[in-house]
């Protein structure tokens, strides 16, 4: 029965929750979009400072409106107040950063704590203004999702539209600002004004989100979706779309779940939904996720290990034979181990691997012998290594006695195309190349 209810809520079939679910989803989309730029600008916590800095504005707006004889609780007034102090807070952060030796984190921390403290003091003061009820003003701290009405909904839609429009309009400038702001300013872009415009957009999203999810949890909306999206892609455009989607989905699912259980605070559920998506992305994200990265690393390590093994075997064969046509003779394990100083556990692992790939075979005597295909592979790998060594000696002025390690750092990533380029560059097309540092190999 609960599942049925959840389905109804998720698919917006229930009239009374449709508005809230849609509203929060659109808010999540907007925050996800604009938060991406904050993340790339390495300013994620600025949303934190900003949202805390809105509190005194809410209190002051209430006081001013009461003093003018209006209702102190008029929402547009409160939000305008919030936006003013929020933006002031952000500008102060920028000012502290530009005029003192203090770094970002301290600047944000100062604005956040002082403004929030001031906000609480002001809220406490205005509570006692006669003839006005300030009760519920602190609802902005935790948010009141369920009380969303049509005007809030239109406000959110409007913000989303404006933010998307501006983002598309100045996407190039924002991209430049995020990736290389110094370059942007030397190229003559007005980086400070762009920064302030970006902050203005963040302020708009934050202030609109205050009512819906509260000032602490809107921070999560600005940070979590873009960070999650970053794990899946290295392209900005993809990241923006993905982050918008993740924000929307977290809002959608979170608001639906909380609509079913009256005692679950919606803001919190939304944040946790986003956090779950983040965890999944961090683990499985194809571009930078932990698991794919680990697997790629393992694969590379395997390849490097195999190439080391084959090249060592080949080098030993070269060292133990005098006349050129190189014969594929069995070599002893001990000799092999000493050649690269493998540990006792490492070498058998590599050999198991190479045997599975049919590159080496074990002789009845316990010695190791390259297979037909292994011999060819070993000769190719060794040749590549030496090509690279020669290139480094010739063009990077690396001493022959040191070049082995440097070549080792890059040779495993060589593709066939680069090998051809190397051959052309070095004017070498021989099938075998002698080691440029024979002294080391003989020792």
């Amino acid at each position: 029965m609960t599942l049925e209810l959840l389905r109804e809520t998720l698919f917006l079939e229930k009239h009374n929750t449709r508005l809230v679910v849609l509203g929060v989803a659109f808010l999540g989309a907007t925050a996800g979009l604009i938060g991406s730029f904050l993340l790339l600008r390495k300013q994620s916590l600025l949303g934190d400072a900003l949202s805390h800095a809105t509190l005194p504005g809410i209190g002051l707006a209430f006081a001013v409106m009461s003093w003018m004889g209006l209702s102190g609780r008029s929402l547009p007034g409160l939000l305008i107040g919030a936006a003013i102090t929020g933006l002031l807070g952000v500008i102060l952060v920028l000012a502290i950063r530009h005029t003192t030796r203090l770094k970002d984190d301290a600047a944000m921390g100062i604005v956040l704590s002082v403004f929030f403290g001031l906000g609480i003091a002001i809220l406490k003061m205005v509570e006692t203004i006669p003839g006005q009820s300030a009760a519920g003003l602190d609802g902005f701290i935790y948010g009141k999702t369920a009380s969303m009405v049509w005007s809030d909904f239109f406000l959110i839609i409007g913000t989303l539209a404006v933010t998307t429009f501006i983002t598309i309009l100045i996407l190039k400038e924002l991209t430049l600002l995020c990736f290389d702001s110094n370059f942007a300013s030397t190229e003559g872009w007005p980086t400070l004004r762009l920064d302030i415009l970006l902050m203005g957009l963040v302020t708009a999203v934050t202030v609109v989100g205050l009512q819906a999810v509260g000032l602490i949890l809107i921070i999560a909306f600005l940070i979590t979706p873009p960070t999650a999206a970053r794990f899946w892609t290295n392209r900005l455009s993809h990241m923006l779309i993905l982050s918008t989607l993740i924000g929307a989905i977290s809002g959608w699912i979170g608001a639906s779940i909380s609509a079913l259980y009256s005692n679950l605070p919606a803001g919190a559920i939304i944040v946790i939904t986003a956090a779950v998506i983040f965890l999944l992305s961090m683990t499985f994200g194809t571009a930078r996720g932990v698991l794919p990265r680990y697997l790629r690393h393992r694969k590379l390590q395997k390849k490097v290990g195999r190439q080391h093994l084959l090249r060592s075997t080949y080098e030993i064969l070269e060292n133990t034979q005098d006349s050129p046509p190189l014969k594929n003779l069995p070599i002893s394990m001990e000799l092999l181990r000493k050649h690269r100083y493998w540990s006792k556990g490492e070498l058998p692992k590599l050999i198991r691997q190479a045997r599975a790939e049919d590159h080496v075979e074990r002789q009845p005597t316990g010695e190791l012998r390259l297979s037909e295909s292994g011999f060819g592979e070993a000769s190719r790998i060794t040749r590549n290594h030496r090509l690279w060594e020669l290139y480094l000696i010739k063009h990077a002025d690396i001493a022959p006695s040191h070049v082995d390690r440097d070549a080792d750092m890059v040779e495993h990533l060589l593709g066939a195309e680069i090998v051809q380029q190397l051959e052309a560059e070095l004017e070498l097309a021989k099938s075998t190349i002698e080691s440029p540092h024979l002294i080391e190999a003989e020792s």
Partner: protein
Amino acid sequence: MNWTVNDLHIILVGGLCAMACALPGTFLLLRRMSMMGDAISHAVLPGLAIAFLISGTRTSWWMFFGAAIAGILTALFSQWITRFGKVERGAAMGIVFTTLFAIGLILIKQTADDVDLDAACVLYGALEYTPLNLVTLFETETTILQVPHAAIVIGATLLFNILVIGFFFKEFTMASFDPALAETQGFRPRLMHYLLMTMVAVTTVAAFEAVGSIIVIAMLIVPPATAFLITRKLPVLIALSLIVAVLSAILGQVSSQALPYLFGLPETTSSGMMATASGFLFLLAWLFGPDGLIKKRTGELEKPMELED
């Protein structure tokens, strides 16, 4: 405005708390981790709720451990996300603390709705009520010296912080300025990092019940930042930030009584005003300090910085 012995008690608690926070805050500032205080003080919420779930009481010790563990976990999780996920530190911190805060909100809503454990209390604290719970230090026939219970808890925290920092001063300094060098010298900067995080967590938790987390965040960041604008020497930096901390507490309490009076309103929260006062002191240092805005505008160009030995 009427000044009573209560105000002295509030200043005592607030001042001790401010100093207890300013000490680890100095090193947080040097390590560019000031926002960690903010993250930890939000993230202790689930620790408190779980401690309540397990123990069923609001006994201070349970709460203390629950919150301290949650605080340390915040530092640990952000570290992991930064390291394994290669996420920028600020973003990692933001994700961890908002998630933990959300979990805390849900736990509290589910379990402790009827108990006096709400998020608002964690945020604002109840500095005004500390004089209600007094402990007698000593009593003679003519005089009686009483201090708030909270003053003893926070005084102990301050002492703990002084001892830890005094004992590991060299290690902390080295780890803050040059972690790589510290590592090669065998000073274990990572251990120092977690020790610092533990200190921040313990201080946050000890203070939250009495004064609320907002003052903790302010005092972790603002006094050291203010001192940082005035001096470049570490011992002076620490001393100055302690002074700024105490001044904020005094100024905050005075203005919490005096400021609303100007508008014809009754008093306001002490902790909020203490945070505001520290911001005011920062503003003064920013404007009038050695490389303050005023001086920059009127004076000649700064001379290049010279190394001090």
